[in-house]
Structures are given as C-alpha cells and as structure tokens.
C-alpha cells in the first residue's frame, strides 16, 4: 500500500468569504479517511503554493462561490512555476458552464457544481488523489 491517507488542501482564494461549503466538504473528505489541511478564506495564491509545497498535498480543492474561480488559472501557473504541477486541482462551487472549458484548459481536473453529491465529491477526489499519490511516492531515488 502506498502512502495510506490522501492529503488534501481545502482552501479559498480571492475576496469571497463564504466558507460554509469548504467546511462541509472538508468534513466529507475527513469522513472518507483523508487528511485535510483546512484554511480560512482569503488566501493569496503564493500562500496556497507555499502550503501545498510544505504539506506535500496530493489534491488542492478550491471553493469558489463569487467568481474567484477566474483566478484559478493564475494558481495553476504559480503551481507549475514552483514545480508542483503533479498536484491535482479541483474546483467546487459556482462556475458558469461557459467557463468550464477555460478552467479545464488551465489544468483543473474536476469541477463540482451545486448539484454535486457527497459521493461525487468523495469519489472524484479519491480517484484523483490516489493517482497523484501513487505516482509521486514511486518516483525518484530516495537515498
């Protein structure tokens, strides 16, 4: 078994302070055996990158309810600059249909809209997180 628990950063970027969704999702993921690093809203992109790096997370979940998803492509660029492009990024919340393509093109793995069930979210993150974790813990020479 590689690396037991999947590690997920659940956070919010931009000016939107509606954090009930991110708290509920954090609890869903914990109940699905994941280790969730939870932060309050209003994180800067550079902070998300530093957290993801130090905590060595497998997945970043961005909760966006007031158009903060529009800066997710900037986050993707910043992650790549830091050498963290292996991390899976998912977005949850309100993302208009016409903007799904631009997020997907920027490298976002999954988008969970208002109708997403607990099962959808848990299964999606588990599948993504397992893939990322398995790949990263088998790469490279350790000693």
């Amino acid at each position: 078994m590689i690396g037991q628990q999947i590690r997920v950063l659940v956070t919010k970027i931009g000016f939107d302070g509606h954090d009930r969704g991110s708290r509920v999702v954090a609890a869903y993921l914990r109940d699905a055996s994941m280790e969730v690093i939870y932060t309050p809203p209003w994180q800067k992109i550079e902070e998300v990158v530093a957290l993801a790096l130090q905590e060595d997370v497998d997945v970043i979940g961005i909760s966006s309810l007031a158009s903060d998803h529009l800066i997710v492509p900037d986050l993707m660029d910043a992650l790549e600059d830091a050498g963290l492009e292996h991390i899976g990024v998912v977005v949850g919340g309100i993302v208009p249909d016409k903007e799904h393509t631009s997020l997907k093109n920027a490298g976002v793995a999954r988008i969970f809209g208002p109708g997403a069930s607990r099962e959808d979210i848990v299964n999606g993150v588990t599948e993504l997180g397992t893939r990322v974790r398995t790949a990263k813990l088998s790469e490279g020479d350790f000693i």
Partner: protein
Amino acid sequence: MSALNSTATLFERLLIGDVVALARAISILETRDDRSDALANRLHGHAGKARVIGFTGPPGSGKSTLINAYVARLRAAGERVAILAVDPSSPLSGGSILGDRTRMGEHNADTGVFIRSIAARGYPGGLALSIPVILDAVDAAGWPTVILETVGAGQSENEIVEFADVKVVLNAPGLGDDIQAIKAGILEIADVLVVNKSDLPLADQTTYQLQAMLELRGSRFQSVSIVKTTAIEHKGLEELDQAITDKLTTTANISPEQRRFQRLPALLRRRVDAMFRARLDSLAPDKVNTICNDVRSGKISIDSAAANLADLAFKVKN
C-alpha cells in the same frame, strides 16, 4: 516534470535545505515501509543539531495561536523556525482535519518558516508514531529551531518529554479548580507553565493555583516559570521568550551526538511498538480464537493467554 526529478537524490537535496525534498521526505517517513526505514536510518546520523521546543496543553487553550505569536517574535529576530503541528485522526474513518495552520496564517508565505501538519493516525501520547523520524528529517535539513505542537492534551499525553529540550505547558483560565492543579499529569512535565487568555477574569486565580502547586512540590519544581500571555494580542511574549531562552541555555552544550542518543530510547520504543503491533494484527484470527476459547473454558488464565499471544506475535516473520 516534477520538482523532485533531478540527478541528486531526495536525501542529498534534503541535506542542503531543499524544502520540496523535506516535504516529500516527511510523506515517505509517514508511510512506514522499507524505504521509509532506509531513509530514516540515513537521516538519523545527520540529526541532533536542532533545538526542540514543545508546546502542549488542553484543546482550545491556544497552543497554535501562541506558537503563531512566538514565531512572529523569533522571525523579527531573524531566526528560522520549523513547526510540526500534530492534530488527532478520526477514530471512525482514520481521516482528519488539520486546522492548526488556521491560527498561523501570517507565516504562510514566509520562507523562513516551515510548517507541517501531521495527523496522529491513532497513536496515543499526544504525538504521531513517526514524530521522531520526522524530527530527524527537519533537523537534518538544517532548521535550527523546531517547535513541536501536540494534539490537545489531557492529563496523560506526556510523550513530548522525550523529544523537547523545553516543554511549554499551556493552561486556559477557569478550566478547573486547585484540585486539578495538584493532580498528576502534564502540569508536572512543564519547564514553562503558561496561563494563556490572561485577559479573562479567572486568569489570576489560575495563576495562583499553579504557583501554589509549584510551592507544594518543593525543590524539583523551583526552576519552573509561570508566564501569563494573551496570545491573540501578542502579549506576554517577552516573558515567554525569556523563560524559554533561560531553559535552552541549560541544554546549549549538548553535542548533536548526545542529543541523538537522548532521543534514541523513545525512537526505538516507537519502532518496537509499531513492529509488535503489526505482527499482532497479522496473526490469523483462528489462532487468536483458539486462545480466547481456552480462556473461556477455564483451561488457561488471562495472564497466560496474553503471554501465549505475545509469543505467537514475536514469532511472526515480517
């Protein structure tokens, strides 16, 4: 291309202070397989330089908030600090919400601070099973000061003693009376007793109770300091810093080799714990059932059943 794909090994990159390598090494050490054992063995010889400051106390007493404020003070003095913050795992799912960073947000983007949230993964004692080897990793990566934050501790989470040069024990006002203060438990392991949230009405009373406890205890407890803080307002930090520094000067002359040696018994005990537990868990259920049935029928005592089970577990090959 991941940041880790390069000609140098993870171990070599960790030693020169590469944070990506350190973060990945901690993940590997947490998995506890053959590779993590090999990595831990290599790291151990490079550890022993860091000073370790332990923070413990009940849930909600303000450990993370006080660490945040204390780290701000260390940063203002130009010191680099690593923080290992342990939170509990769910006994139901094994998952956890690691929320200590919530109170340490002001250091998120500071490259002079390394914060890692660690789930206890069911290990008792207030710290995680892998803490000693993770401590070695952070130490070997050149972080001169490591702050170790336990899970919210009750009266018996004493493991911090085995790893910290200085033990800071937090109390929040109004959590108990003077009988609580004279009970055995984490209060006894403190080098520095902190009454946090000291802007609250019962703070003075809690302070007196702790002072009275120390006086009753006599000479062994003479060197324990009591400090009042209001972490959220960054108050009382000068006194806290002084108390920690005073204690650290008494361990300043310990060589890295001695420090490693001091931590070794606890490290080994945890290894044995994990090894034995894994073997016990891997015993075939019918063997365990046979022993249980022998107890049920009165054929053997509980003591000899336990001894038989332990014998069987020892014989399991890894």
